[in-house]
């Protein structure tokens, strides 16, 4: 398993404001598997990604990546794991405003202290895979929402991640473009053997996923069969 969460509990806020964001969550995602997580707003979906992506430490429970327990790593090691093993696709693409599309990808290699030559080749291949070759020199401000999101996916794949975490990657897009983005994610997950966890609240995309889970009040369960 590339990603494994064991009996995760996460309490956020303090004092009277405490919220149980994750309640006894268990989840395993295999390499090449695309798991979709559905759920209403505030149910804890982003919290799940934050814990899986080493941005938040769970209150209790264990997080494992590639079979290694990473729950208790310090901030520096977590940053290193994120740089090396994890790809993020954010809700609003979240690109660096001053960098061109190609530089967004090269940045990832730069953060890892890697070799620029190989990185340039990989970046060009990824941009081709997401159909952005002709946009490689453009800055985020010069791109459409769909193009930005595709750039975000290419960036997330740049470090050849074992895990890809996508938080509502289609929420800023119209249906057709949203679907294209999700299909791209699924294709890349399968081709590159990436364990992909995608949060969405758009039920029309679910057929693309290998497995669909549902989050309710911090509890994760297989999706209940839909009546009619």
């Amino acid at each position: 398993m590339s990603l494994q969460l064991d009996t995760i509990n996460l309490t956020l806020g303090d004092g009277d404001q405490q919220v149980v964001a994750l309640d006894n969550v268990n989840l395993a995602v295999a390499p090449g598997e695309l798991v979709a997580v559905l759920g209403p707003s505030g149910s804890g979906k982003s919290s799940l990604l934050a814990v899986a992506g080493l941005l938040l430490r769970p209150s209790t429970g264990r997080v494992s990546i590639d079979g290694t327990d990473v729950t208790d790593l310090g901030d520096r090691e977590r940053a290193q794991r994120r740089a090396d093993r994890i790809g993020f696709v954010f809700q609003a693409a979240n690109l660096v405003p001053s960098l061109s599309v190609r530089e967004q990808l090269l940045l990832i290699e730069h953060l890892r202290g890697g070799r620029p030559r190989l990185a340039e080749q990989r970046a060009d291949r990824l941009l081709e895979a997401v159909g952005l070759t002709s946009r490689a020199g453009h800055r985020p401000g010069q791109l459409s929402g769909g193009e930005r999101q595709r750039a975000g996916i290419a960036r997330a794949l740049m470090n050849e991640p074992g895990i890809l975490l996508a938080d509502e990657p289609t929420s800023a897009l119209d249906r057709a473009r949203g679907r294209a983005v999700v299909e791209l994610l699924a294709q890349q997950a399968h081709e590159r053997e990436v364990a992909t966890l995608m949060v969405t609240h758009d039920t029309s995309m679910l057929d693309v996923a290998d497995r669909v889970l549902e989050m309710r009040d911090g509890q994760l369960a297989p999706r209940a069969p839909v009546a009619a």
Partner: protein
Amino acid sequence: MFIALRDLRFARGRFALMGAVVALVALLMVLLTGLATGLADDNVSAIADLPATHLAFSAESGVKFNQSTVTADQWQALRSVPGVADAAPVGNSLFNGHVYADHAQADKARTEVLANGKATSADTAGAPAVDLALFGVEPGSFVAPVQTAGERLAAGSDGVVVSDDLARKKGVKVGDVLVLDRVGLELPVVGITRKANFGHVPVVFAPLQVWQKATFGSTRAVATFVAVRADDAFVPATADQAQRLTTVTRTAAFDGSPGYKEETGTLVMIEGFLYVIAGMLVAAFFTVWTIQRTAEIGLLKALGARTGYVVRDAIGQAAIVLVGATALGLGLGLGLGAAMPGNAPFALKPVPVLGAGALLVVMGLLGSAVSIRRIAKIDPLIALTGGNAGAR
């Protein structure tokens, strides 16, 4: 500095604005150091250029040019103090005078001054007036001026050697006669020496006895201070004890010139304020810039950038802007300084100018460093959850 350089290009308008402010401060620094150096030159260049290591004043007066009197016993005794290569008396007083090209006219002026205290007839009173510092030195001693034109000082003569400044600004030339106001001494100009100033007026070098006559009305074996040429073996405190002197290094003696401390003090204070203001300006700029970049920094950290990486990037960016802007400002300042009118108290020397530039860059870097804590505190979680993650 992968991002820093691209940010500089991307947000060039904003950086240009900050750079312009830093450049202007640098320019102001050049003008201020020029003024400080110029004023100091104007005030004490004659002392600064003395080929002496130490100056000895009387113990009673301390380091005060206008109050000290030293005796022949004292300067002769100093010559045999261990470590002292040579010691020579220097008399120093401020005078006013008039310059005459025509000797008959100078004689007439002298008679009038002796009778009435000033030149009274139309032709004598209209001669060019000069303020001057009369330096009395023993002809042939190591403090005697080196003439660039005319002849050197000679014992037993009233001939004087004047600062080049008098030649350039007042048209004084060898052969002219200087008549001192009030005392009515007639001093023929026999030579010109390089620019020497004291107390913001040009220096006229005279034989010590002439200075004594001008100052006391008679030749008494005294001077204002003793110029000492000594090596490391010289212990001023011991000589001071034995001879009732106050001996200081040549540069420390500058403070004894009237107004020197106050002038330099004021300028140093203005410069100090400017450095602090520059530091605070840069701090304010980078604080706002960091706040604007909060989301981007959160993203970088989420993507695996360590805080140290982001900080290095930010400080490197500040360094580029500061060095570039300071260099530009120094360049403009030097250009402007070169265009200064010649009679303004203004002089540019490489060390103070480069020192000011370096200090400005350091202050700017300190200013930019205030954003380090802010950068460190940004939580990568905001990349996922947006701005409200800061609530944690």
